Every structure is written in C-alpha cells, then in structure tokens.
C-alpha cells in the first residue's frame, strides 16, 4: 500500500505529531517501503484462523472492590509541567 503525503498528514494529525511539511514526502516514501515489505503477509492463508487473543494461556485475574490507592495528589502532580490549585493546567479548550 503506497502511502502518499496526504496520508502522512492525516495519520500524523491522528497521532498528534507535528511533522514539518518538508519531511512529509520522504516519510511517505519510508512508510510505503515498510508497508510494502509487510504486505508479504498477504501470502499466508489465514482462512478460519482466529486472531491471537492472548500470548500465553492465562485467566484474567479480578481484583476485589477495595479502596487501597489514591489520596496522593502530590505524587500525581509531582511531574506536571503546569499545575494550579491542585489541577493540571493545559491551554484553554473551547468546545
């Protein structure tokens, strides 16, 4: 599958990664190359094969409904680039 520059723009937007305009065409070529190589999977007959759901045979463990965490606002905010009055702060969002 060839990836064009517009596709790079679209997925970079989805991934919220700023890609300078000049980098988009070369990136499109790189991604096309990798996806082209990946496409050999098309050769494999996977008719009737269920997608792998878990790597090793394990049962999902359940936790008891007990409060044993929280009440650590200092730890939660310790590394925040910007915080005020106990809140994380980000550029204003207009809905």
């Amino acid at each position, binding site marked *: 599958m060839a990836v064009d520059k517009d596709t790079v723009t679209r997925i970079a937007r989805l991934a919220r990664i700023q890609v300078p305009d000049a980098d988009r065409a070369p990136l499109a070529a790189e991604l096309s190359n990798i996806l082209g190589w990946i496409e050999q999977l098309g050769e494999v007959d996977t008719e009737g094969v269920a997608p792998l759901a878990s790597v090793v045979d394990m049962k999902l463990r*359940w936790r008891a409904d007990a409060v044993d965490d929280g009440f650590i606002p200092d730890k939660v905010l310790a590394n925040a680039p910007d915080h005020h*009055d106990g809140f994380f*702060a980000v550029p204003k969002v*207009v809905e």
Partner: protein
Amino acid sequence: MSLIDGRTGAWEIVIGLEVHAQVISEAKLFSGAPTAFGAEPNTQVSLVDAAMPGMLPVINAHCIAQAVRTGLGLDAEINRVSVFDRKNYFYADLPQGYQISQYKQPIVGRGTIAIELPSGETRSIGITRLHLEQDAGKSLHDQHPSLTYVDLNRSGVALMEIVSEPDIRSADEAAAYLGKLRSILRYLGTCDGNMEEGSLRCDVNLSVRRPGGALGTRCEIKNVNSIRFVRQAIEYEARRQVEVIENGGTIEQETRLFDSAKGVTRSMRSKEHAHDYRYFPDPDLLPLKLAEDFIETIRRTLPELPDAKKRRFVSAFGLGAYDADVLVAEKETAAYFEAVVDARDGTPRRDPKIAANWVTGELFGRLNEARLDIARSPVAAPALGGLIALIADGTISGRIAKDVFALMFETGKDAAAIVAERGLKQVTDTAAIEAEIDKVLAANADKLAEYRSGKDKLFGFFVGQVMKATQGKANPGAVNDILRKKLAG
C-alpha cells in the same frame, strides 16, 4: 408515536439513547482509587488513573458483577466471553490517550425495557448492548482566562454504557425509557441514578423520516443530563432537522451539544477532524470470561424489579394500575409502601388500598411541602402502619387520623402515643354521645323544628354540631344512629 407536522407533511422521529451509568462500587474499574463524588481535585487518583509510565490496569470484580446484574435485570444476554478494547483519542482529561472500553464483544448483548406512556399504553424498547468502560476526568474551562484545568478524580470510574435500539419515537417515550431505566438500575443497586451529579448521562441519537420510510441521517446530541433536557433537546433537534430538510438542505452526521440555558442544540467545534478511534483489544488485559455459576449466583440475588412489583401490587393487593405505577417508580417508595402494608407470608396486615392512599396522599403531600425525600420521612413506615391500624380498629376516626398524622410528621412520635397524650381516642360510649346529642338538640330547638317539618338536609348540620362538641372524637357511626333516632322523636 407522535408525528411532527412539517410544511411538506408529517415526519416521524427516530431516537436511540446511549446512557452512561456510573457503576456503584467502592474503587475504580481498573485501580484501587476511590469513586467518591465531590472530593478535592486529583485526590481520588492513583498512578494508574493518571496514566503514569508503566502503570497497568487490573479489573475490579465487583464492577463485572454489577454489569452482569444489570444485564440480567434488563433481560439481556450475558456474553460468556467479552473483550476490553482501547478507544484511542487525545483529550486533556483522557490521561492514557485512550479509553478502555468494549467494542466488538461487550459483556452484555440484547435485552428489552417495557415503558408505560402517559396514555397508559405500554411499549417495548430494545437494548442493543451494555458494555463496561472507564470514565474520563473533568475539564474545567471557567477557572482561568487562558487555561483549562483538569481534575482526574473521575478518571477510571466504571461506567456501563447502555445503548438502546432506535425504537423510540417521541420525547415522551424517551422520557419514559430513561425514567424506567433509571428505576431498574436503582432497584438493582448498580447505579444511583443521580443525574445532577452525573451518575447517569444521556446521549441522544436522533433522525427524522417520512412515517415508515427509510431512516434519515442521525445526529448525536451529547450529555443531555436531565429528563427534562432530553425532552427539550429532542423537541428542538427534531424541529431543526425537519426545517433543514424542508428548506432543501441535508442533515450531516455530526455530534451536537445541548445548550440547556438556551434550550437549543448546536454543532460541536471539535468536529473539524473526523474521529478515527482505532479500536483494538487492550494488550494489557486478557479476554473476560464468565463462569456459569458466577452468573447464576447473581441471578439468584436479583431483587423484584418494578414491572414484577407492579403486577403483584395489582394482583395481590388489588391496587389500580395508576397507583401501582406511582408506588413502584422509586424503589424507596415501594419499600416504604410494603413496610406500611406489612404483608408477611403474602397476607397484608394493613389494607393495601388504604395504605396506598395514605402514602400517595398525606405522606407525599407533607414530604413535598417539607422538601424531603421518602428516605428521610419523619414518619417511618411502621409508624404509618400503626396509624392505619388505629383507624381500622376504631380507636380513631379517619378525620382525627389526619390530625394525628400531622402531629406525627412534626414530632416524630408514633400514633398511639399522640392519641393517648392528647385524649383523641374515639368516644364509643353511647350514653356519653346521647348526652352530647341532647345538649345540641336543646341548644338548637329552632333547627330541630325545621327538621321535623321535613327539612331533611339539616341532618348533616346536627352531625357536625355533635362532632364539634366532642372535638371529633365521637364515633361517627354511633352519632349517626343515635341522632337519627332522637330526631325522629
């Protein structure tokens, strides 16, 4: 079904509701942080909820049980295997950059809810699915001129998203559906149904079409957070869509917000980039598998739900459908009523119809005036039962009972104590009643003469005088009998 009268003819509204119901649990869906409402910002947050690097989710067993319980309460299929997926998108209050939700394989499949309409008609609304997912945090846009503040206290709280089929045809039906769903959740104890605190939130999917025609393009109205707003949003949005189409426009599939101050819906600015959530199974979790005995244990502890309770109130207690509806709508009311009736082994200790009248009449009236809910009623159910017993055994009259009830409501004392302390016990001693009647007749010789000359209507006047003289305590039956004899001379 209620049609809209457009300029070009009639239009049918097609509505599906997505309800997010907060699961009642102590801890969050995938962490051990508390779920309490209204705490200081970022205090109910674990490192998992804040999506610190390397943090991992571990599922809360009780939240699974609550989802299954709700599924059983909605007569729905319980899926023995379900899968948690990641729904990927960026937002300030979504710390992981994805929401753990269930997409292709939800924990609960198809079910139904029966709704009663104001007309008395009953309809069945299909449930498409119920799935478990994490709540996001909260963004506050009005705390700072150039910043949005983010509080992660709700981040990771368990939600059940309950999706209806597009079976709803009017604002009335939507309101009835939401009310019924809320009632069922509260009976089950799986969601407190508190719409003000956001425990129950509703997204409305709405389209219009020619009656019975092909489905139109729908718009999703987000976060409509009261039943009243749901009505308003539906009425506004349906009109808007009809107008757009009738003016030659087309409806674009989009997400809209309900502005409760203006009563209108408006397009969300953030639609500029189309969503592509890139769902895939969360590799930090394994498929959720439910054992039969787990499901059966929950099934055995299901409470009687509003529909079944209503049927029993009608068939076993002889209540009318309307009274039964009123009494079962809130589980606390139903529980109160049942405690008043006190039907051990199915035999009511108090007359259910009289009990129903007291609960929906005097009690509701007083509670309303005092702005109290039934859980905080100063008159407990056994006390009201006691009052009804005093009426039944002739200790007090129905008229006196209303005064006694008022005193009970004010003082919290029980009926027998008030009756004793105020000497309100009914006078049934015929000699004492005769004496009072004699006094009244003597004092009203003129009226007595009129009566005897044929003015029968004055009988009521004499009864009233006697009751007044006895401060209402005279047994009304005895007063009637004796008075009739004396008047006849």
